[in-house]
């Protein structure tokens, strides 16, 4: 974390000068006032300059990436991380050999990592981020599988006129199912059950 100490005739002036030195804006900084400063008599005697310490807040996306790296590096496998950000969705792509150990059975390890990274990124940031942790395109493959599954189950529902309950899935996977069947007029979808065992139900209309 970079920080500078600056002085000025007033606190405001000192802060501005510090921000200029760091080349950042006020909402990226933490400001500590060390000395309030005094105007002094007629601006001549007993005036004291204001002193402030301004430190730069670390970019939460970078910080969360370091956090993730600190975890995966302990697995003794070579993993590289690439991050990308779109609106408030931050995606970390993990790649490397032996990535399977980080995905785990039904992506439970990958989802656990994703949840932890999301906690860390939102802990100090005033903006809300959604985090996706992906491994070698796993999320995309899973999405394709889920869309296929949704369509297959939907036609089953229409044929048999009976509800189909899918297995429990995390919210972002349920969303893929809901979205996939959104424009299918023959069925409607909703979720039932309590987290972490919420599941999608497909019903014919």
């Amino acid at each position, binding site marked *: 974390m970079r920080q500078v100490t600056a002085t000025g005739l007033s606190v405001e002036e000192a802060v501005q000068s510090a921000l200029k030195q760091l080349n950042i804006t006020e909402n990226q900084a933490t400001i500590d006032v060390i000395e309030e400063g005094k105007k002094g008599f007629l601006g001549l005697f007993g005036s004291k300059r204001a002193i402030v310490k301004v430190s730069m807040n670390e970019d939460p996306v970078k910080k969360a990436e370091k956090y993730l790296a600190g975890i995966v590096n*302990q697995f003794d496998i070579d993993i590289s991380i690439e991050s990308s950000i779109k609106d408030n969705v931050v995606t970390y792509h993990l790649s490397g050999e032996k990535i399977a150990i980080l995905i785990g059975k039904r992506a439970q390890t990958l989802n656990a990592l994703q*949840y932890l990274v999301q906690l860390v990124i939102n802990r100090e940031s005033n903006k809300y981020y959604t985090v996706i942790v992906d491994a070698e395109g796993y999320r995309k493959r899973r999405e394709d599988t889920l869309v296929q599954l949704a369509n297959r189950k939907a036609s089953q529902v229409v044929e048999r006129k009976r509800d189909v309950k899918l297995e429990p899935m995390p919210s972002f996977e349920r969303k893929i199912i809901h979205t996939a069947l959104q424009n299918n007029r023959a069925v409607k979808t909703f979720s039932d059950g309590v987290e972490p065992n919420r599941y999608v139900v497909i019903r014919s209309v």
Partner: protein
Amino acid sequence: MKALIENIVVPLVDYPEAIHVTEKEEENKIVYHLEVHADDVGKVIGKNGRIAKAVRTVVYAAGMKSNKRIYLDIM
């Protein structure tokens, strides 16, 4: 392994200096005992144990390479 647990937990809490991980090896399992500051207990357990579950999932995945079972105790 201890480093992994610390790496996971430290950024989640307000009092990182109060974190203690102790390791106890038994016949066919290794038990890691995690202690945190009293005010931080909720931050490592979470609503319905959701955070604790995520921490354990990651720790157990890393423990797969050793042939002993691994347990994580959170005080």
